[in-house]
């Protein structure tokens, strides 16, 4: 897994690539924590280059979503979700729990 982050005016963008599995989700969790610790709760995750996600990765995302949505202070929005990755979200019953945008511009522009 690799990632880059970008601080924008109204949100933070995380671009993730590769595998989000039980190993790498711990590293990705730290990325979310670093953003959330600065009291920034609007996060866009660009999933376009995510090749694989297991339930461990899904668990990380749902936990981040719970934290960000608390007190209506923000939200994790997903962008460019590949078909396979979407099907894992679907199987987990997670589709209704995330706003999923077509591209990063829509997602960033929604905050």
């Amino acid at each position, binding site marked *: 897994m690799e990632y880059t982050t970008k601080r924008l005016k109204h949100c933070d963008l995380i671009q993730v690539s590769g595998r989000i599995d039980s190993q790498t989700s711990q590293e990705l969790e730290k990325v979310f924590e670093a953003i959330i610790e600065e009291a920034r709760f609007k996060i866009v995750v660009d999933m376009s280059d995510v090749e*694989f996600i*297991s*339930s461990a990765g899904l*668990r990380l995302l*749902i936990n981040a979503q*719970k934290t960000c949505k608390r007190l209506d202070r923000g939200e994790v929005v997903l962008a460019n979700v590949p078909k*396979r990755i979407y099907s894992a979200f679907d199987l*987990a*019953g997670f589709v209704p*729990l995330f706003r999923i945008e077509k591209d990063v511009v829509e997602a960033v522009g929604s905050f």
Partner: protein
Amino acid sequence: MDFPKTETFPGAGSSLEAINTFVTEAAQAIGLDEDAIFGVQLAVEEACDNIIEHAYAGASKGDIECSCDIVTDGLKIVLRDSGRPFDPESVPKPDLDSPLEERDIGGLGLHFIKNLMDEVRFEFFPGSGNVLTMVKRKTPAG
């Protein structure tokens, strides 16, 4: 590629990618389509996560032996571990639809395995350990 093919991996998170590659190559050789291959990858990943996290948790860790074989219209994958016995019947169904705040996210691994594979069988053999047998069949053409 000759079947059956078997490989043994250390029961640790660092093996996940190698196991994934091993089963993917078998699934491709047998001619599963892309969706089926993705299902195999995810099911095997979840099964290995559980072996590492639950079967071997705390105890002295062991290996994961993975075998792939051709069966009628599909691929059979057998995962063996020497960890503590596991009875999947004891695991409650996952929560797939409560609201975000109440969503309990345990149990997804087994749910994935059962949904993505066409046959799933958990067995425990005292002395040798757990055997998880999974079959993924080719999607009928057309």
